């Protein structure tokens, strides 16, 4: 099963509100991580985002579902700023997993 979301259609071209991202992550992505082989987040047309939004969307997924979610998620149509934010959100999630394991 493959799932695809247009982030532009869901949130518009500017992404600043982390609480919206959390709601979306928990209700629309989280439940499908274990049953989809691919979840595409299409950022085409998204002009910019901040760390609050992207961390709320991505970091929490990695922290909750572990490294396997990185294999499931595909990020499409990202401009260079969005790409940096996503890479850092994945890394932040992985750092949190490492910390939890150590604790």
């Amino acid at each position: 099963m493959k799932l695809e979301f247009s982030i532009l259609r869901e949130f518009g071209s500017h992404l600043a509100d982390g609480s919206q991202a959390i709601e979306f992550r928990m209700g629309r992505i989280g439940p499908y991580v274990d049953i989809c082989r691919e979840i595409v987040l299409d950022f085409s047309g998204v002009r910019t985002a901040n760390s609050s939004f992207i961390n709320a969307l991505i970091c929490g997924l990695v922290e909750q579902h572990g490294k396997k979610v990185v294999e499931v998620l595909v990020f499409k149509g990202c401009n260079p700023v969005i790409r940096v934010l996503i890479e850092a959100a994945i890394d932040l999630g992985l750092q949190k997993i490492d910390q939890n394991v150590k604790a």
Partner: protein
Amino acid sequence: MRIQLPIHINADGLPPFLSMLGQPLVEGEEVTLDFSGLRRVTPAGLVGLVATVLRWRREHHPVAFLGLDVCAITGYLQRMDVLKTCGADMPESFTRHEAKGRFVPVRLVDHRVNEMGHEMASCLAPGGDDYDHPMSGIYDMAWYVLTEIANNARQHSGGQGYVTAQVNSQEGLVRLALADNGKGILKSFQDTGFSWSSGMDDAVAIQKALEPKVSSKGWPANEGVGLTLVAELSRLTRAWLLIVSGQGTLQILPKRGLSVSKLSDGRRFHGTLIGLTFRQQEVRDFADLLHQAKSRTGLLRDGGITGKFKV
């Protein structure tokens, strides 16, 4: 209480001005602001004044405005919507022109942070909303900083935030400022129940807020990296950053580096004020700056798993 506004409220004159505004008042005491000598004020001074006047009003202190008839910059204060926002509107003797590329009047930070960021960044960097435009780096920097600090003001302060910005094209400078009249950073930590915040002072609390992954909101709403990255971006672009909260002040200066101190006479700014001034020429490739800022703060490790991307 009568406050004579100084001639210049900028750079090193800003903390003393905030000390003046922080004088204690007795219940119901009137405040008189005398503008007659004022000749220059930066955006940070404007929002510091607005947030304070509206706090006084909220606490039922009458506020009187004197000397605006002789003040050299009354027109500027009107254009910046300072007087209107403070409830001291007066007839304008000038025609308002397009502000694009020059300034953004003072506005309340409300739930429309996305729109606020876009409108302000577009005004400061006309055309920059197009990713391939030469102004896009300035647009991105302004949008990122404004939305992160506005989110903080909305989520943590418990008060009202006011934001403004200005471009000085001769000097090539962009000035952004936000001030709220809420509880301040230290109280926000303490209200969250962080044991490490007991016995802490305001200046140390500001420094703590700049550390990565420290947030008084906490998971799942916030990862506590917004202010960390704003500070690192200001270091990377050799910008001037000022954060005032309670009695504490923190500055990151292009040549002098980090400087932490307290407002004079034990005074406090009732809320949090953030002012950032950066040079347009230092912000060309925002993606690269953000990558560096994330790496330097340990929020993006080299050689890690980066995810699957496709065009």
